């Protein structure tokens, strides 16, 4: 704060601080408080709002706790998001290592370009592309049939399709934090470990992963949050058996017309996501400041 005053003078600093406060209050705090307020009130016809029935209660939350299907979908969403995160990590870790430590600058540039270009296309269209690829009569089944790997078309839509599309959609959010943290690892450390007799897995376990820990945790947190809050992939590629919790929230808002219950559901998802994130960071012994770097 004193730094800011020194650099920009008192009046400009006041403007900065005011803008930041405005942002925090207007864009972060107010909507969330409003949502909490909604979640704690019953859904009433307009005439009764502010009337004797309009009082705070936990009814919207207890409804979720008592509704077995929604509860199952909720936990499934958390669990499936964890799997998406894990698969994305498994895909990105070797790629990030190769980019950061093995590739020549030209190779790395080309590879990153290749990874980024698809992201110039809208997320809905990208997911739609997966929808086409994985369709029952789509190219993937056609190729596998032609190769003789399957004898009849497979219905990919459902959990598998959602997993594939999400992994693809969030690859960059996982890749870049890991790549960044791996890039700062001195190549001589890997050589030294090898020279001292360590096999590849030990080099990764003892040298590379500890160094890249903050990046890995950051990537996992991003991917998990995005996956848990995803709507497009499950709604396009999911089957009735692979519904996502966000779809249920959407339904409360736009089909059930019960904004209060929708808000309560969204709040539960938010809190659980936060809990998972904080637990992950704790487990990896990384603090929030590292993640925002």
């Amino acid at each position: 704060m004193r730094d800011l005053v020194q650099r920009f003078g008192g009046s400009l600093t006041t403007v900065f601080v005011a803008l930041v406060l405005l942002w925090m209050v207007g864009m972060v705090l107010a909507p969330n408080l409003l949502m909490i307020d909604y979640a704690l009130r019953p859904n009433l016809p307009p005439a009764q709002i502010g009337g004797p029935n309009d009082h705070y209660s936990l009814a919207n939350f207890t409804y979720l706790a008592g509704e077995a299907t929604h509860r199952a979908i909720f936990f499934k969403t958390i669990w499936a998001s964890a799997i998406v995160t894990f698969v994305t990590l498994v895909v990105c870790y070797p790629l990030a290592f190769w980019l950061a430590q093995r590739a020549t600058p030209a190779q790395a540039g080309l590879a990153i370009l290749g990874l980024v270009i698809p992201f110039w296309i809208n997320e809905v269209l990208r997911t739609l592309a997966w929808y086409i690829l994985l369709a029952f009569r789509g190219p993937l089944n056609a190729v596998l049939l032609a190769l003789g790997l399957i004898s009849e078309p497979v219905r990919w839509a459902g959990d598998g399709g959602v997993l594939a599309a999400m992994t693809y959609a969030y690859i960059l959010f996982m890749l870049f934090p890991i790549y960044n943290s791996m890039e700062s690892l001195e190549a001589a450390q890997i050589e030294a470990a090898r020279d001292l007799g360590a096999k590849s897995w030990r080099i990764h376990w003892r040298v590379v992963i500890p160094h890249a820990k903050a990046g890995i945790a950051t990537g996992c947190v991003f991917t998990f949050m995005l996956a848990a809050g995803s709507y497009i992939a499950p709604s396009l590629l999911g089957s009735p058996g692979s519904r996502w919790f966000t779809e249920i929230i959407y339904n409360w808002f736009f089909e059930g017309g019960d904004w209060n219950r929708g808000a309560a559901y969204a709040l539960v998802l938010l809190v659980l996501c936060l809990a998972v994130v904080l637990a992950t960071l704790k487990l990896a012994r990384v603090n929030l400041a590292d993640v925002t770097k």
Partner: protein
Amino acid sequence: MSRSVQLDRVGMTFGTTRAVSDVTFTVEDGEFFSILGPSGCGKTTLLRIVAGFLRPTEGTVLIGGRDMAGLAPNRRPTAMIFQSLALFPLMSVRENIAFGLEARGVGKAERSRKADELLDVVALGGFGDRKPGELSGGQRQRVAIARALAVEPDVLLLDEPLSALDLKLRQHMRAELRALQKRTGVTFIYITHDQGEALAMSDRVAVMSAGVVEQIGAPQDLYANPQTPFVAGFVGETNRIAGRVAALAGGIATVDTGLGPMRGRAGPGLAEGQAVKLYVRPEALTPGTGGENSLAARVERVDFEGAFALAHGRLADGEEMIASIPATRLADAPGIGTEAAFHFDTDHAVVLADA
């Protein structure tokens, strides 16, 4: 034989860069062998070839008589100390030292004990629980040495390990490294671009220039008998006097210089009439007339260096000349601005063909 390193016509080309060519030498068991050369001459490349990080484009490397072709660094009986040390910053000093043992599947208690033993060897007892970042430069240096020694290598490869240290510490570590090498009996291959370091520590030194080994010999030998103009100039200070060979007899060359005829020991491959230079060390030049060869110079300045003084003069042909005068003989030092006479023994001058 068991811990010797033999290089046979080793060459390395990166794309179009010829980094090392036709290097052949043998480092004996238990020898302290230095590779000395200016920056970019291919020293690191050569060391990385021995360690197994680079596959040479030609030639073979034998360690203990065994061909190393195709063996990865972790399969060779070598350990490398990197220019940057490459300690693992997130591990404690003890874990760093024990890492090689961990990789060999040695149990935790045993490797911990061994690490503490090595900490004592490098005089860092009690520092085991610190992180490398909490040590001074010299202490980190010693951790790197202990970490490499922990795997009991036959050959220790050191890539300018002292270059990051300040002068005092560097001199101290020189002595320590030398003592450690004698105590462990491990063969050392030591890279440096500091000729003082190479001369002070090594049993033998290979002088490299532009990817080629120019000369190999004991420090005194390199200093007294340089075989190429590069070695004469790179190892120690020297004066150069240009001329042509007038006569060759009994290993002595008589050179016609612009300052009159002078004699010195003939280098390899001389012929009469050849363009040569006569190389004389500053300390071989004695003030005063007489002696076997004499020359005159206008003294421009005299720098007192403590143990000796350096008289900078200009010869009649316009070339610079430096004479070193021991502090005990300062009374003989010529006055600044005077035309002074110097002389040197034929035995103390070397005549080498121009490259």
